[in-house]
């Protein structure tokens, strides 16, 4: 490798910040577009507000990576990768959270549909990744256990 891991991480971090800025600014411009979705207390309501529907098709072309047991519920690493064509957005829902919508990533045309983030989880619950591609919603889900810990043998 011509670039070491630390440099890559730094590049990604900087790139991520820039991407975040460019993604966020249109949101501000569009004002209320996601407020309702991010504030929804119930997952189906959040999906409808964000994506216009909660009719999801489970797909093996949506790959959701999440731990079986969270090492720290405050920062649970989640990765979503999709091999579908025409991906427009990828969003992450944590069913049992007070506000189930955790993140939405807008995927510009020609971009690899591969995102990683961390979500906060208060308790054991199902995490769902929704990929919007060519106007349709595809999903993958996984239950992530959050435990109080301790008592290890």
């Amino acid at each position, binding site marked *: *490798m011509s670039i*070491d*891991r*630390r440099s890559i*991480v*730094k590049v990604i971090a900087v790139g991520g910040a820039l991407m975040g800025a460019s993604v966020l600014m249109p949101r501000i411009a569009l004002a209320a577009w996601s407020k309702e979705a991010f504030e929804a207390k119930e997952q189906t309501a959040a999906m409808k507000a964000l994506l216009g529907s909660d009719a999801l098709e489970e797909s093996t072309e949506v790959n959701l990576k999440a*731990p*079986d*047991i969270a*090492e*720290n519920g405050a920062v649970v690493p989640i990765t979503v990768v999709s091999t579908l064509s025409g991906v427009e957005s990828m969003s992450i829902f944590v069913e049992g959270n007070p506000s189930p919508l955790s993140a939405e990533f807008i995927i510009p045309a020609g971009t690899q549909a591969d995102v990683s983030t961390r979500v906060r989880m208060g308790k*054991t619950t199902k995490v769902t990744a929704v990929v919007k591609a060519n106007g349709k919603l595809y999903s993958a889900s996984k239950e992530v*256990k959050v*435990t*109080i*810990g*301790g*008592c*290890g*043998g």
Partner: protein
Amino acid sequence: MSMSRREFAQLLGLAGAAGVLPSTGFAALKHSADPYEVANFGNVRLLHMTDCHAQLLPIYFREPNVNLGMGAAKGQAPHLVGDKLLNHFGIASNSLEAHAFSCLQYEEAAVKYGKVGGFAHIKTLVDRLRESYGREKTLLLDGGDTWQGSGTAYKTRGMDMVEASNELGVDYMTGHWEFTYHQEEILKNIKAFNGEFLAQNVFVTEEALFSGAEEYIYDEDTGHVFQPYSIREINGARIAIIGQAFPRTKIANPARFIPDWTFDIYDGKLQEQVDNIRGTENVDAVVVLSHNGMDVDLAMAGRVSGVDVILGGHTHDGIPSPTVVKNNGGTTLVCNVGSNGKFVGVMDLDIRNGKVEDFRYRLMPVFSELLAPDAGMAKLITDIRAPYLPWLTEALAPADELMFRRGNFNGTFDQVICDALRKVNDAQISLSPGFRWGTTVLKGQMVTMEHVLDQTCLTYPETYVREMKGSELKLILEDVADNLFNPEPYLQSGGDMVRVGGFDYVCDPAESIGSRISEMTLDNGEKIDAEKSYKVSGWATVGARSEGADIWDVVAEYLKDRKVASIDKLNTPKLKNVEGNPGIIDYPV
């Protein structure tokens, strides 16, 4: 299966070489053969120990009478106890090995056969198993939980055990309780360790990479904190040894000691690693040295292919012969070799034509009276202990009954700990973690500070007293029960049920989380109210550090006051849906 149970049973059944034994219980047995005489087989010998929990001297250790398997694990190794285990593995009852592998007639047999383990005795056995096979054709692998569990390990931050492991000649190890010291201490210990410390499932966090972690981690590109695997050529065979540290370390133990590292089970990464090793390293055999726990190892063996042998630990299961697991690539042998220095596993492999053709396996109990202590190791142990002897040997109270811990629910020694917490800290209820380490004290033996340390010695020993609602108590019990009884092994965390003092409950292990625990009732008969607050005392908090006295001082104070080590009442749950389960015998209620 190709392993010879009969051969093993014969060897151990005929215990006691004339003239070799000291004149204790064994001498009277008048056996004629040597139990440690092992026929050589194949071309590579792997010696395996695990979970000794820093027990340098011989100890007593009673195997559990409750080790329930739920779901698909019911009735399968390792979830067999007593005669169920003996029958499954074809071991004669009332024999030396019956005593080693089961809790049957424990006290009587313990008096007869004496103590087990001890590093000076293990050293003698290991050397003998190496010399008789050809030292250069053998490896000694340690599955971890070596640096914690005794007063001297606590005082030296694990360094005493690094020295003992070096003296023993450990070639490879992985870890779990090793990670309960601070990061920099762990790195220092590993540096002093003469063997190789392997872990393919411990990664540096990305935050830590920004703050200097690249200075010490093994591979900056992959993020491996430690060397993931090693290749060794032995007697013409190339063998890969992959390390698998305990994947739930930051959940089961304090994350605050190791903030920069992250652990998990990574089947995909392990498979990639195995495929890569097989594809590029020209190996004849792949071995995983694991601290997953046996249920997780069995599941992992079914999901990951290309591994010949998993040498496992964590769950402290002394299993006489390997479980053969079928997977996409063929089969994987899964072994687990008990705890506290009680056993050494001997895996002889016949490696030919680029693969493992056959094997022989024996799990050898280390009976201290049958093995002369190695002089060099004995001296090292004496030197290690010397500065702390007055502390370790303080007499607290004689045991008025058998004092033990191991088992899914409560043990007598844990009840003493729970009683001590309630009495000394003036609490209604006490909680004590269900660790699987902790040695056994026979009735009539003097309980010393060292025995109390065997049960309690960890790096976060502070006690607490706080108000807790009934609903919180239930939540804790449900959570721990799920870590133990969830039928999906990857959702278990190891350890046994949290021990309780001052109340009883009903437990249905077959239920799901939230529904296993019911009828929580105080010793005075009053039902525990979800909304009411109770004064609870406990220890070993994994979140923030507690403020109270160290648990061993609390227990010592209690025993000195009480003047006898005994219990008035065992707080252990009534069980539902365990009838006919071969993982339970002689349960008191």
